[in-house]
């Protein structure tokens, strides 16, 4: 209990004094997670929507695989990305290992199935509502996807925020591919792991509280900007 209290006090002082290290790793956390979120959303939202409206031979298997990939163990993803990006790996020549880019790649792989799967579920329900109307209006496939994304945008926002939540709280994969290098690839979660290992629970907790506050702040900000939960809106 004392550790938690001390953690809260430390977190408060770290924030009010604009601790340089805290600001740096917080900004890096945001940079990595938001970049991964944008990239993953750009892949997952059209993919999930496409899966909702297209009928093809291996559709069921594809959806089952996508749902299964939601539970991808981050450590395994980290390991695979590590092998691919290491010097002896196929992409070693790019020199991306132990950089924020490698961390973004790992996070994109982890959160894309999650966003795509939630998108698919939401779009499938919306498509059931809209199917007859859009066919009747002769909407092209592109127009149908655009209409679903447009009208389901608030659900898609939720899907993206779920992805963001997973990305910003992720530690296993980015620890492996980023290496937790000070001033280079250290982010809030890897810093928490490091401080816990060193036995500095107060600082680890302080960083934890900052991480939670950051995640809440981003969620609130996105909700405010997208004007969700307002009267007369969907």
């Amino acid at each position, binding site marked *: 209990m004392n550790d938690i209290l001390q953690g809260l006090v430390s977190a408060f002082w770290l924030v009010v004094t604009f601790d340089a290290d805290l600001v740096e790793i917080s900004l890096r956390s945001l940079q990595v997670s938001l970049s991964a979120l944008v990239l993953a959303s750009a892949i997952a939202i059209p993919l999930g929507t496409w899966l909702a409206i297209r009928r093809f031979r291996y559709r069921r298997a594809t959806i089952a695989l996508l749902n299964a990939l939601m539970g991808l163990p981050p450590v395994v993803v980290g390991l695979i990305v590590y092998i691919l990006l290491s010097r002896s790996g196929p992409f070693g020549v790019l020199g991306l290992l132990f950089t924020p880019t490698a961390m973004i790649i790992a996070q994109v792989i982890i959160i894309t199935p999650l966003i795509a799967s939630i998108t698919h579920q939401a779009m499938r329900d919306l498509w059931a509502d*809209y199917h007859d*109307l859009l066919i*009747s209006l002769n909407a092209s496939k592109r127009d149908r996807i655009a209409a679903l994304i447009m009208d389901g945008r608030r659900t898609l926002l939720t899907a993206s925020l779920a992805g963001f939540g997973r990305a910003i709280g992720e530690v296993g994969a980015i620890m492996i591919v980023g290496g937790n290098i000070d001033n280079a690839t250290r982010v809030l979660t890897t810093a928490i792991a490091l401080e816990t290992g060193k036995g500095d629970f107060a600082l680890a907790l302080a960083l934890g509280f900052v991480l939670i506050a950051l995640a809440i702040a981003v969620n609130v900000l996105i909700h405010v900007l997208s004007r969700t939960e307002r009267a007369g809106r969907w």
Partner: protein
Amino acid sequence: MVVAASLSAPRHHFGLRHAVVRRRGSTLLGPVTLALPPVGLTIVLGPNGAGKTTMLRAMHGLDRLSEGEVLSDEPLQAARRKQGFVFQSPIMLRRSVRANLAYPLKLDRVPSGQAAEAVERWAKRTGLTAVIDNPAPSLSGGEKQKLALARALIRKPELVFLDEPCANLDGRSTREIEELLSEAVEDGTRIVMTTHNIAQARRLATDAVFLFQGLIHEQGPADRFFDQPQRPETQGFLKGDLIE
């Protein structure tokens, strides 16, 4: 009902030939053959499960035919561009009334100024101006049905299918919908509509079709259909008998 004598839009032949719709082993419709008259409002009557909705959906290409064909001068896709469909439970896009009305024009790549003008005109015509910026799903049943009808008519289609557009509506809303339908027919739009309401059918129809157990039992001009029905099932249905 007055029907415009000369219509500027080219008229296309449309109908069904030996059309059959089967689902999961049971026949929902057919075989039916139907050629729509070039103008007017065709009422499709029949008890529940007679195949009225299935026939409309098949003609519009929403349901695939198991046998037979849709009679059209053009490929089905091209023909559908000149058609509209109003569903029994109106489907509202999760947007404002304005955006719902504008959507078909957007699909047709109509310039935005022209589309905005058409939207305002149709909102006024359907009495939806006061709620034009409201979310469409929040409208009342009658308003939703008027919006669905306006959205189908805003493209000036040659042919509109309506599946029981006045089901569950009160007298006032029904009258407003009927006025819109009469105006549309006068403007040259061909309408095919299902209803259970025989009084409404008498008010609106220029010709009528009676469907029973998936088959067309009788069809013809409205006067003859309602005043001198030939088949006992039609006579019974028009008298209000329960037929199964």
